[in-house]
């Protein structure tokens, strides 16, 4: 076809990957859970990138959303509560060739994993970090999470969550060397796709907070947002995320914001009246830690032995 002999490109066509190649077992989240939409979007982004499934690794912590690796056809590492990011960083440390995805939740990332969250954003290793934020602990059945809005009734705070919710956007933006900070909702497929695609294309840690529906335990978190798209402000810029016209019809409050503008990003992140959607901040030039951690790899056995012998010479008697 196109005048080129078919066998020239045979290899490529033999390994054309379909959505099925990126999916694993049947996802077992509750009906109406926002996680399905994110999972399908990840499959689509990978299929469109045509990455060999064996080159991707999906890493997660503990929680509903952390089941995601089990529903992928790639390699996966379903880790421990709060520890997805150190595990993912380790995967990348000496394997920059691997495509790394992290699935974590508001409890997993912002509470028990708060330390790794801060330090991993600073390490800025090339990976997509999807935080499924449903403002509640789901798997352990309805406990207050750091992002539960004040007054939300939970099993640990039956009379309502007592404190103002933690703002993950301002915190992430405040971390030195942060390079990609975006926010999106699970119920708008084109925006979700474009945001995750842009996150995947960025080299560095792409932090994507996904406001995610949990119809079972925190319906009151997303339901009003779904019903009132005017509560959002959609960020638009040629340096930002490509916006579908259909998305702009849903979220009609659109503002220009250059994602290189950190102060502007912080202003949107702090806005308590309008919730920002899209790419808040992007620094394509931030230091990427695997450039340091993998820099000296690739020495031959002979070179290694020469170097260790030289090191031992200092202690020779």
């Amino acid at each position, binding site marked *: 076809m196109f005048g080129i002999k078919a066998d020239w490109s045979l290899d490529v066509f033999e390994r054309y990957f379909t959505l099925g190649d990126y999916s*694993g*077992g049947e996802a077992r989240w509750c009906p109406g859970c926002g996680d399905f939409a994110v999972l399908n979007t990840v499959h689509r982004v990978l299929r469109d990138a045509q990455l*060999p*499934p*064996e*080159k991707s*690794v*999906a*890493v997660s912590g503990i929680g509903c959303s952390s089941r995601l*690796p*089990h529903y*992928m*056809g*790639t*390699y*996966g*590492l*379903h*880790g*421990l509560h709060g*520890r997805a*990011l*150190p*595990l*993912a*960083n*380790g*995967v*990348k*440390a*000496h*394997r920059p*060739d*691997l495509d790394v995805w992290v699935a974590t939740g508001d409890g997993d990332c912002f509470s028990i994993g708060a*330390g*790794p969250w*801060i*330090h991993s954003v600073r390490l800025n290793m090339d990976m997509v970090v999807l935080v499924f934020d449903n403002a509640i602990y789901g798997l352990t059945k309805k406990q207050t999470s750091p992002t539960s809005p004040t007054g939300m009734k939970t099993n640990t705070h039956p009379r309502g969550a007592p404190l103002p919710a933690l703002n993950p956007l301002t915190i992430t933006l405040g971390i030195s060397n942060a390079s990609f900070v975006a926010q999106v909702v699970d119920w708008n497929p084109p925006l979700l796709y474009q945001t995750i695609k842009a996150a995947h294309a960025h080299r560095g840690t792409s932090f994507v907070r996904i406001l995610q529906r949990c119809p079972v335990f925190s319906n009151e978190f997303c339901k009003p947002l779904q019903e009132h798209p005017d509560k959002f402000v959609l960020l638009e810029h040629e340096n930002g995320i490509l916006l579908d016209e259909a998305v702009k019809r849903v979220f009609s409050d659109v503002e220009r914001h250059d994602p290189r503008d950190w102060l502007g990003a912080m202003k949107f992140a702090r806005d308590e009246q309008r919730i920002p959607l899209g790419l808040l901040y992007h620094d394509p030039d931030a230091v990427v830690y695997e450039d*340091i*951690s*993998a*820099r*000296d*790899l*690739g*020495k031959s*056995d002979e*070179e*290694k*032995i020469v*170097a*260790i*012998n*030289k*090191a*031992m010479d200092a*202690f*020779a*008697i």
Partner: protein
Amino acid sequence: MSNSKPAQVIDEHIVEIVSDSGEGAQKCGQTFGTIGAKMGNGIWTVEIIPAEIQPPARSPAGASGNRIRVGSRYMTNMGNEADLVVAFNEQVLFSRIANGAYKNGTIVLLESKWASDPQEEIRAAYTQAVKEFREHGLIVHELNFEVECLKLVDNARKGKNMFALGMLCRIYSRDVEKGHSEIHNAFAYKGDKVVKINQELFDAGYAFARDKVDYHYEIPPYTSDVKAKPMMVCNGNTAVGLGVMASGMDLVSMYPITPATSASHYIAEVFDKVGGFVHQAEDEIAAIGFAIGASYAGKTACTITSGPGMALKTELMGLAVMGEIPLVIIDVQRGGPSTGLPTKVEQGDLLSSLFGMPGDAPKIILAAATIAECFHLPITARKLAEAFRGPVILLTDANLATGVQPWERPVLQEEWLADPVDQSEWDKSVPAYDWDETTGLSPRPIPGQPGGMYVLTGLSHTNRSKVAYDSDTNQTTMEFRSRKLAALQSTLKPPTIHGDESGDLLVVGWGSTLGAIDEAVDTLRAGGQKVSSIHLRFLSPLEPGLKEIFARFKKVMTIEINYSDSVDAPLITEENRRRAQLANILRMQTLVDVDCWSKVYGHPLQPGELIEVLEQRLAALNS
């Protein structure tokens, strides 16, 4: 005093140099040890370290320095009381006396400038201390080093250590050229000027001791041809660092913790040239998480820590056991529990390494007994971690970490290095955990291998790594993970017995106590006692044949540096007595009534102390 007498030939001496922190006594001691090693003596050095970086000057708690046992035979431990001490002030000696470091007749060369200090309290304290030292039986010589040093430098705090080194080199007939060359090695990075002034201080100290000190010894080398076997001299943490590199592991993920950190410092200094990387994580948990991620996706990685770090890493160690991820965890033990004794030795992490996590988590545990083993066991650990697909804990301790001893320079082997990461196609019909029915062993797929895709999980899982909560899966997979230890044990040899194959008393030890135990056993055997010893390197699984060996002795006991109740302590009975850690394991595994003696003094064992203990036990056995 003036000294032109010929040197007195001696078999060994224990020398200490003690000062306030920051006065360089440690550097002086280490250099003196290295010169001894290079002259063909056996040496063992122990650091005297305060827990604070800058403790108050002239305080017993601030004692900082080095103990060097140097002799005409191979030295394996720090020995008993010191023979000669150089001290920069009198107060630091009080803590050493409290530690039982000195005896009746220990020679003390003491800085005397305090006798004429402008502050009356200092003058009084000095006079009082010297009086007490003499009452205690110490032979105190008051010498004004300060005045001599000030002839060469403005600030004697910087330089007195090399002056002291010169004195010691004269007293022990050390080679002046070797002294100069070690000073060059130590200070070359600071430039020629610094090297020169330190060499001048050394010469001044040498001349001062020649003219003013009436002691002059010679310690002949223990082998006539030192060059026959190439040797190295370094501490255990450096040896661990070299071993990690020689094992082919190329990632060390750590968080700073005493007394483990210097191993990572050393690795970081040279790792770029060897082709590896030290990751300093934000905490102990992230450090092991990073190592597990790297191991999962490539070559076996390593994390180096100490007791409190081990406690924090527990949950992720469980993940490595459950997900069968090769991993090397090096625990340089210190005193515990909690923050405990950060700079002091203890063998307190054996039981927590073995059992300190929820559920059944079988893992391999090794313990290094010598500095050479600090080098060799990381290589063994890496191989075992891969062959047995799981974490391997290597226990060393603060005594090995800072102890310096010459050891045979290893000839590096290519086969010690890790294979390149396998990226060939994985046979899809082979599950991710293709457990062998007999051994529990299985090969592991590595990300990037086409066809090998699986999701590693800490949840109970099938051989294809699918989450499975059913009874049979959990039971059988636990069996497979446990069976790996039995498979490893079936390949091990019974321990070598030091001494006769049977007798009255068998002493069992592990870790850094080897030298002290063997020396005590040898002394007693020379006196006709029927005592032997074995020393375990494998703690999990245990080395085979122990029950049979134990049966050949009237009594078996462990000697350890960890806590146990004394038999004669209040309320202690046979039933409630809490025993030393290895003793517990041996009793549990062999059903032999294994006794123990252990202390948590925070310092290495002295052979003399062990001789007394063993003599009592032997006397009780034969009465």
